[in-house]
């Protein structure tokens, strides 16, 4: 007997009898002999729960898995996650359910997805949100495909060089196989080169333009006039945004974007080595039927009660097969619940306050680093939010190594001399002081 298998000898005997066979292996008599697997798997022996815990405790021993004080970002941020969030998402009614196809016994899931959609729409300033995507990178790739599918006569999708190169690589991968070209619009002084964009648009054939806000380097770009220029060419304006900053920053809707995408990890989801996070996608009302993924809508039941249900399913793979807007089905529903509860707890003021603290911390740390005389801002005249790039006048690898020794992840190396640093509301003034002290101590 094994704890996950309830079959007793007696059960087996009765059930096999009903099936008219004498052994469970007889149930595979329709499998050709040459396809049968006859040896034991080369896997470790079963572990008891006590041994399993010991095993993972050993794996997470600081010498095997080191928790560093995190000043790294680049798409994954160490934001505060209220205790309430982790507690509620573990409720088994949410955790152990499937996609809410049976609305009558899935109102819990359908309700929170509707709330999630409302919150994402509100943060992005757009009309419609879907029920979630895998991550920010694939959401951006899906948006690129949406733009390509939406265009009548297009030759390419443009991507700003200031978009995270990890995200660009995913967009390029999807585009390559889906069958449309991606063209890079170069950066000038850390931001989208407007002259280069205008030149591309003037050539025509642009299905869409993808930018990031704040961009990969943490810079808050000014996209004034960009939407009009793109819309004149009938292209879609796609903004990859960091939702935690949208408490403060101008929304994709206010920039007149058609589609907003990004990663919701910064909204209360632990980093967990990069996943699971949650991709989000929002768009204008007129694009709703082109949107990939699941969407929850409001309706009534036959008792006259307000109810929620998966809707507009005619876009989806299980109905439309190869003509679907995307192949996505399972998304990151439980992670959308993280986001929903996070935004409910933090609320209108809390999200703003956390963003304000992150901004203040990043700027304070930046001041301190510049004051050491060892750094200069990579893009000195550009406004940034909670992430910024500095050029170091010494050996950057040695700096990062020294910081790691002291328990700090000082940032991400994004150029030979360039260090990208992110600060969240979780970083204390003491931690920032200590990081600066560590760096000061390093001999040139």
């Amino acid at each position, binding site marked *: 007997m094994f704890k*996950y*298998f*309830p*079959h007793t000898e007696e059960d087996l005997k009765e*059930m096999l009898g009903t099936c008219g066979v004498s052994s469970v*292996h007889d*149930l*595979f008599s*329709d499998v050709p002999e040459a*396809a049968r*697997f006859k040896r034991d798997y080369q*896997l470790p022996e*079963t572990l008891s729960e006590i*041994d399993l815990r010991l095993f993972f405790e050993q794996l*997470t021993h*600081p*010498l095997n*898995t*080191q928790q560093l004080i*995190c000043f*790294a970002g680049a798409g994954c941020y160490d934001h505060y996650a209220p205790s309430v969030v982790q507690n509620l998402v573990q*409720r088994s009614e949410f*955790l*152990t359910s*499937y*996609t809410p196809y049976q609305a*009558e*016994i*899935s109102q*819990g899931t359908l309700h*929170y997805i509707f*709330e999630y959609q409302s919150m994402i729409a*509100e943060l992005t300033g757009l009309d*419609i949100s879907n029920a*979630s995507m895998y991550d920010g*990178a694939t959401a951006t790739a899906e948006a690129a495909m949406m733009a390509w599918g939406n265009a009548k006569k297009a030759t390419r999708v443009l991507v700003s060089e200031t978009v*995270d190169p990890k995200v*660009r*690589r995913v967009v390029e991968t999807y585009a390559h196989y889906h069958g449309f070209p991606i063209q890079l619009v170069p950066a000038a002084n850390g931001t989208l080169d407007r002259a280069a964009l205008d030149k591309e648009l003037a050539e025509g054939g642009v299905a869409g333009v993808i930018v990031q806000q704040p961009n990969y380097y943490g810079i808050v770009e000014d996209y004034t006039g960009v939407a009009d220029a793109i819309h004149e060419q009938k292209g879609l304006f796609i903004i990859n945004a960091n939702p935690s900053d949208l*408490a403060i*920053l101008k929304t994709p809707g206010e920039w007149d974007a058609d589609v907003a995408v990004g990663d919701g990890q910064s909204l209360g989801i632990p980093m967990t080595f990069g*996943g699971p996070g949650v991709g989000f996608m929002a768009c204008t009302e007129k694009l709703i039927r082109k949107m990939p993924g699941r969407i929850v809508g409001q309706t009534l*039941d036959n*008792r006259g009660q307000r109810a929620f249900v998966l*809707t507009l399913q*005619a876009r989806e793979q299980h109905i439309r097969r190869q003509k679907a807007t995307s*192949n*996505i089905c*399972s998304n*990151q*529903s*439980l992670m959308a*619940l993280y986001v929903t509860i996070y935004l409910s707890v933090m*609320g*209108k003021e809390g999200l703003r306050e956390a963003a304000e603290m992150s901004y*203040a911390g990043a*700027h304070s740390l930046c001041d301190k680093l510049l004051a050491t005389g060892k750094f200069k801002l990579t893009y000195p005249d550009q*406004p940034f939010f909670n992430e910024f790039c500095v050029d170091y006048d010494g050996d950057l690898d040695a700096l990062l190594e020294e910081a790691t020794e002291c328990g700090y992840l000082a940032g*991400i190396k994004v150029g030979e001399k360039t260090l990208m640093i992110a600060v969240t509301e979780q970083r*204390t003034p003491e931690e920032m002081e200590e990081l600066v002290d560590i760096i000061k101590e390093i001999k040139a």
Partner: protein
Amino acid sequence: MNRTLYGNLIFELSKKGRKGYSLPQDYDRTHTTAELPEALRRSTAARLPECDELTVIRHYTNLSHNNFGVNDGFYPLGSCTMKYNPVINEEIAAMKAFAALHPLQPAETCQGALEVYFNLQQSLAELAGLSEFTLNPCAGAHGELTGLMVIRAYHESRKDDARTKVLIPDSAHGTNPASAAVCGLEVVEVRSLADGTVDVEHLGELLAECGSEVAAMMMTNPNTLGIFEPRVLEITKMVHEAGGLMYYDGANLNALLGECRPGDMGFDVMHINLHKTFSTPHGGGGPGSGPVGVRKGLEAFLPMPRVTKGKTGTATAPHSAPEGATAPVFTIDYGKMSSMGDEGATKADTSIGSFFGNFGVMLKAYAYILTLGRENVKNVGPLATLNANYIKERLRDDYLLPIQGLCKHEVVFDGLVDKSTGVTTMDVAKRLLDYGYHAPTIYFPLLFHESLMIEPTENESKETIDAFIDVMHKIAAEAKSDPELVKTAPHNTPIGRVDDVLAAKQPITTYWKSKNT
């Protein structure tokens, strides 16, 4: 489950001025976002809820009471493998050391995490009979797409650009053709025979017609009817001879654990749904994980980043003493990034996500495999198959069994035997909800008009299954004695049947829209 509707939205509980959080107040306020030019700031505050902590707790607790999960009761949803999600796996995945890991921290500081990644992919390779897996895909469909990319990259590497078609049986899940379309491939349907298996003669005709254009054939085995494809070895041979690769959709892999491996049947590329076969929770629709495996010779086409194991040092083995430091064993290969600016010419490596996929899900699957161990993994397929065949034999008197013979992990009926009162599969499914069961998958596969697909999994006891069978018989009796009762079900759920047409006609998908309508 609470059978009355709770029904509130968090926005309706909001009251101006309430708060549910606390943040430190002693920080350097030299800089504030007011420094940002006004043109870069949003004009009005986001209308997020304002609630105290207990209100939030009660709201989501009450919402959860209107939901049904595997922990609430039997969930025989065919093709979804709703097995038990062990709670120890949740404990492991929530360990702070993992939760606090940044994906870009130096490899020597996250050897434990890399070991989980590496060893899980090795375990999957052993179970699948393949060479190597990437764990980066976030779901089954994401895995399908990734696998097809691998196949296209393989053909591209041989400059065999004519291979743009993918053969898919007409009984396949909708994701197969959808993934093929996203991957830029043209779908060619292979017909099924009356017994639901692939029409090998039709396949032969198709290969004769356009074999040199075939990139791959996608197959689910057991197929979507729960039937093992008896001629699978012939099929893989035929496609290989035509120069195509065989893709295995791992949706139904659970049936085969212990009995056969896709690699041994001749499949070259496959995905596995960790949220089906390896017990990770479905979470109401994700996060899943869809690792993709390849046979020897195709490893180079897997997407970046990849976790590799060096030749030096030793990994942490179960039961070894927690002595700690080992020389870095596992390394991360990020591959070539997208070109920046003037380096325009270099092409980036294939990548399907920013980091390593849903690592938190991998932890749960790895804990599951370690818990089962080699002694128990082999019983998964046989027990799941026994449960399904037992249901098949016990329900065939009242429910129409269109395909005779053995099934694997799931069984498909074509509605009631006696359809004279007009009770449909939809009605039977809805009536099941009244009795405290989740419904089976309905109206799929499309081969039958009244498909009712039941997958019990290996975790369900004979008592649970017998009780379900009794209720199914009871519903069949009700369909004769009181058909209206069944046709108007459910009666005992928080809400009744919903108006799908109303929802789709003028979609209301946000609270703001609902207030203005």
